[in-house]
């Protein structure tokens, strides 16, 4: 690729134009598709400029805010970073064991009505090993389903 065109100026020019077009396409594509990762506080501080654009919102699920209708599959909860708080609406089932206080990242758009419409919901796993507390083990939480050995 080096040897062939380099001897002719027009080929060099064509290559330069090609590379420039490609770089410009990448630049434009990135500009349009970069998704910011924000906490509720940062999102609220940005105000209108953060509305109706794709955003990733990260924080904890506010205790007591989770409402899920298993018939309509509508999920409503609030994400908080301690001070700020944003209401999130999502469709579909929440990840199992979706619980108060857990870390979540929701991707979607912050609407002008002040509600964050989420298109995808990710649970933040903690990699640290930690034995489940009493009452948290599946055998205990779902006693009626998991009979356990010997039952």
């Amino acid at each position, binding site marked *: 690729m*080096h040897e062939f065109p380099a001897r002719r100026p027009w080929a060099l020019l064509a290559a330069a134009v090609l590379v420039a077009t490609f770089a410009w396409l990448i630049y434009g594509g*990135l500009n349009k598709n970069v998704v910011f990762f924000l906490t509720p506080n940062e999102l609220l501080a940005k105000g209108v400029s953060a509305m109706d654009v794709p955003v990733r919102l990260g924080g904890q699920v506010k205790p007591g805010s989770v409402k899920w209708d298993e018939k309509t599959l509508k999920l409503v909860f609030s994400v908080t970073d301690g001070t700020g708080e944003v209401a999130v609406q999502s469709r579909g089932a929440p990840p199992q064991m979706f619980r108060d206080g857990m870390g979540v990242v929701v991707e979607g758009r912050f609407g002008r009505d002040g509600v964050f419409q989420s298109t995808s919901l990710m649970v933040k796993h903690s990699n640290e090993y930690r034995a489940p507390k009493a009452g948290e083990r599946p055998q205990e939480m779902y006693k009626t389903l998991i009979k356990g050995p010997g039952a």
Partner: protein
Amino acid sequence: MIRLVARDALLISLAVLVLGAIMVPVAVRRQRRDWLDVAYAAVYTNFLLVTVAAVAMVIALVTHDFSVSYVAQVGSRATPLFYTVISLWGALEGSILFWAWVLALYSAAVVWINRNRPGNLVPYAASALLAVSFFFAVLLVGPANPFLAVSPVPLDGPGPNPLLQNHILMAVHPPLLYLGYVGMSVPFAFAIGAMLSGEVTSDDWVRLTRRWTLVSWGFLSAAIIAGMWWSYEVLGWGGYWAWDPVENASFIPWLTATAYLHSAMVQERRGMLRLWNLNLVVGTFVLTILGTFLTRSGIISSVHAFTTGTIGYFFLAFIALVLVSALAMVAGNSDRLRTTGRFDAVASRETVILFNNLFLTAFMFTVLVGTLFPLVAEYVRGVKVSVGEPFFNMMSLPMIVALLFLMGVGPALPWKSATAEEVKRKLLPPTIGAGVLAAVAWIAGARNVYAVLAFAFVGYSATANLREFWIGARARHMAHGEAWGTALARLVGGNRRRYGGYVAHLGVFLVALGVAASQTFRSEREGTLTPGESLTVAGRTVRLKEVWGRTERQRDVIGATLEVMSGGRARGTVEPRMNFYPTSREPVPTPAVRSAFFGDLYVSLMAFRPDGGSATVKVIYEPLVPWIWMGGGVVVLGALICVFPVAKRAEAVARSRAAGQVVAPRPLEGEA
């Protein structure tokens, strides 16, 4: 005890590697074959030593020797034997050990197979492989040491990451990926060897290198497909590719390796693109190390990133060292790499391959920029961003459809230059295939321009590639009166590199069809069912029978049994489940996939009422997804056909036959 044996083996290997790498230049300068044999012995010894360490680790894992740090980290008495063994590559330190072992294996194989090759290329290549091995040995005694002492010795451990012990593909994808990734060190070592020995001006090293690149490329292709399959079977979202950084890390070097496999032919046949090929080989190797850095340093959080430690700096330093020294060597050789051939015409195979390289390289840069951008943005401006899927799709789809088209044009055109008549005869008939598949896609309801184009170009190129088999086999059938089967077998057997390549193309078309169809025609519904209730997607109905739970040895399971109905009758059941591992509060989804030739019914258990009164399920109909996995198999078959060693006698017979039948092959288009 076993810990000390393994640790000492790794320490000794450090010394052996240094000795071997230094012996090579001395032996070459003094023309001492016996000293060279010492260097080669170092390569074999290193393989033995790393094997000792790897076997020691497996024994430690199987015997639950929790005094070994790595076992304490990933072992658990409750984990089944199978997953205990494969947890060798389930976390950082073990995966680096496995990596070092694969590299030692490749090095030993390369040196053994080529030990009698005249010239200084192989000695210098061995030296380069020893140097790369040295880097990984340093990691193993330093930041990624799996054999540290643990005190007090724990009685039990947490077991491997739940996601990594939930599916049998975990035994398949990582080894394939290592074989593919690590294998790219071999072409790199040959490139270094060619430059240091001065053989870079002959094109023979490219012939040698292309073969080894094919081996790694075959493994890497299989690994990427297996990774997609794993993600499809385990993650429960019904997809197989998300432009996730770790997926990209495996894909980026695949693109440059693919480019090299094609452009190497141009160098062999036409003596062009010499410097370019050298850059592709070096670049591919650097990209595999970069990929390892991305996935192993913890800089990107994912199931592949295990820890955050100092190991990232080692990788960055190594990448910098390789880039600077290799590129300096390439630059120093650039004057000697003048091209001897020239592009005669636009309508020629080499021009098509030139465009193929252009698109593959642009594709590589796109994915690379999109993957690295978040890291750079965070480092430079302190903002946390991610690059969305739309970027990758928008940028890559035009290049993908263009490449699909070129895959048909290239094989149809001859080297050097095609006459107008040839162009017409070869390039026009496949348009029928394009029309047929485009019509099928349109009638099926595809309206997205790239979807229709993808179908059309697959139709075009598949026809063009299949026609090559047809034309060749027909010629043999007519000329020698061979039966069709024999004619086809001898056609492929007589020029396996060429026809193996076309087989690999056909595999890519299957993958492309699977992806295009499943992205375009996927239908999905989610709903909460009580026992007896049903949900219908794309004419396929599932009915909930019951929600159940049970305790298995290493986990608890909640599952739902659903009947798959068709024509009012139950045709079988599916059992999507959630597996609860003691190490993680969140369960691992385990969707149920019911495969048929034309598509999968994919059922995921999303939620359930604790009393079993209802289950929320997601049901997806995914057309042609099985074709992706089949296509991967065909790609690998193609690589196998190309690379499988020719028996010496058969080769001689083929050569004498080719020489004897000067009349026949030309009009039969039997040339590569």
